[in-house]
């Protein structure tokens, strides 16, 4: 009687720890989302002050990464989690690295925004960049939602969005090359634009990674480096160890 009560106590504390861990990862995700949103806004509106503020706030993201990393190590050391719990923690350790990288890319975009703000603005006000950014932001949001809901199906759907992002990135690059060939005076500005697009594309890749960790967390299947069709086949295969 006594021992079972004791055990229950420990496991509920453990559950609380895991919940808190998940909450803080998603809080970090929220911060990164808003960093990205503000960085994109700084580019589109040519707001150098906002760009500087975003670059400054990146250290908050870095701090959160370190905190969560330590919390994960502590849980592994003190609780020795197994199966699903271990997968959750492993996935979180990987996800925060990707989130931190997204934060870095957002910082890069913000710095480029301060540089672009001093240059001549094109007539279309970076409409292509804004559209690519909208897709990437949506992808990041969907990835974090999937992480919050532990929804592997949504995660797989989000993986598919990356293709569209890549296509749009390609078209922006081609367009930039055309601009530079037409008028070499714009090279300085257009180079900055390609870098922003490049950062956005990288963020899409990191969001994709997060989705793969969600699949790993839920199904225990590693779907990294697989193409769409094989991901679907991999998930359709019956599990040997069950859904634990």
């Amino acid at each position, binding site marked *: 009687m006594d021992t079972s009560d004791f055990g229950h106590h420990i496991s509920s504390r453990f559950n609380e720890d895991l919940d808190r861990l*998940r909450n803080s990862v998603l809080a970090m995700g*929220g911060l990164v989302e808003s960093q990205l949103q503000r960085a994109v806004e700084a580019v589109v509106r040519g707001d150098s002050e906002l760009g500087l503020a975003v670059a400054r706030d990146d250290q908050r993201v870095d701090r959160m990464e370190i905190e969560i990393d330590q919390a994960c190590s502590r849980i592994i050391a003190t609780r020795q989690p197994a199966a699903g719990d271990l997968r959750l923690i492993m996935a979180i350790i990987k996800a925060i690295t990707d989130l931190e990288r997204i934060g870095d890319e957002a910082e890069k975009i913000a710095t480029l925004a301060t540089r672009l703000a001093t240059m001549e603005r094109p007539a279309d006000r970076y409409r292509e960049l804004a559209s690519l950014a909208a897709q990437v932001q949506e992808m990041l949001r969907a990835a974090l939602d999937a992480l919050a809901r532990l929804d592997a199906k949504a995660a797989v759907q989000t993986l598919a969005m990356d293709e569209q992002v890549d296509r749009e990135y390609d078209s922006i690059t081609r367009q930039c090359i055309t601009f530079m060939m037409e008028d070499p005076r714009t090279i300085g500005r257009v180079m900055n634009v390609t870098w922003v697009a490049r950062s956005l594309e990288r963020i899409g890749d990191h969001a994709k990674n997060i989705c793969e960790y969600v699949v790993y967390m839920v199904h225990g299947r590693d779907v990294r480096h697989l193409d769409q069709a094989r991901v679907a086949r991999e998930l359709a295969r019956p599990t040997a160890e069950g859904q634990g």
Partner: protein
Amino acid sequence: MAPGVLSALGWRVALVFLAALFLGLTLGGLAWWLFAGALGLFLYLAYAAWGLEQWLRTGKRRSEAAADGVLAAVYADIVQLKQRARRRKKRFNRLLREVRDSTDAMHDGGVILNADMEITWLNDAASRLLGLDRSRDQGQHITNLVRHPDFVAYIEQAEFSEKLKMPGPRRNTHLSVQLIPYGNQQKLLIVQDFTREVRLEHMRRDFVANVSHELRSPLTVIAGYLESLGDENSLDEVWREPVTEMQRQVARMNSIVHDLITLSRLEAAERPAGQEPVDVPGMLGQLHRDALARRERPGELELRLETPALVRGEEQELHSVFSNLLNNALRFTPADGRIECRWWQDERGLHFSLTDTGIGIPEALIPRVTERFFRVDSGRAREVGGTGLGLAIVKHALLRHGGQLEIQSRPGEGSTFTCHFPPSRVVLPADEVVQDAGEAH
């Protein structure tokens, strides 16, 4: 109505007892007959109880056999209870459905959170505005799905009397949310969509800013020509006066446009004003000297600097606050009046007050004087000049510094305008260096 259990049982016991007595007396062995009768009664009761139990378990309709057994009354009561419960359930269901339908019809989103900030219920609008999934998100921590840092900070604080404005999860949406604690640590989260308002406000602001900018260049051209025209010696004397008047009016239009641009810049700035220490006492001293140098001014013009404290903020904006207030006072105070400015500090922050013995403002109009182009006495105000935008600029500039404008006035006696700056923006000249060093950690 079935007979009660006691009466139903009573006549059965009496009958069995009489029969046992009769048989025992006529055939002998009375004790055995009585025992057999008691046993029979016991078995009968056990059977009836078993029947009741079966009926309750299977939940079938009341069987005909049970209807006239010993427990008929119990059956009847239970059936009635069941019917009543069924009716009540139906009523509750209907009520619940009505509540659900009406909350789903609401434009504002509502989310009920438990003590751990987990979602326990939400309506249609909330799932639409916050991007939540009603069927799956119950039990989720709210900040896991609504992740904006401002929202997370808002949820973590203990005070929810203010609304929070934040961008929504869908692109280009703006939400205003408020948390209302109630009951046993539960909380209701109200979510409102004010995207349309934000858009209209942006449009209005952009329009004013654009119009002002567009007006500036034609005005410069007109002013230039009028100036050379006024300097022209060959100008007919008849035209001398109209040209001077035109110059005055162009100058007025110029200052209106200038004020409009200042105002729209203040409004468009979304972040609070900067944090540079601004030497307000020095600024007030300069304004005071300028005012003293004027030809037309009230006889008494006093400035009392009671603290050397500085304010963190934007120098240009603070300058327009003080110069607008002072110019207003100079304009509306007669030559035999008096103006007194005071700069002081207390535990609630820094304050600037300006008391004049001017014409004053009727109490009912005080809340309106900071509106654009609002004039207490339109004829008179135009006569003394001014753009009608001064106090609006003061109000907005103070808001950007976390400050407030307080106005007390009595018609005919004069007015007091007080600017309050919060303690967070106070810098003492001595610890300016120390504070800068302290910011590093």
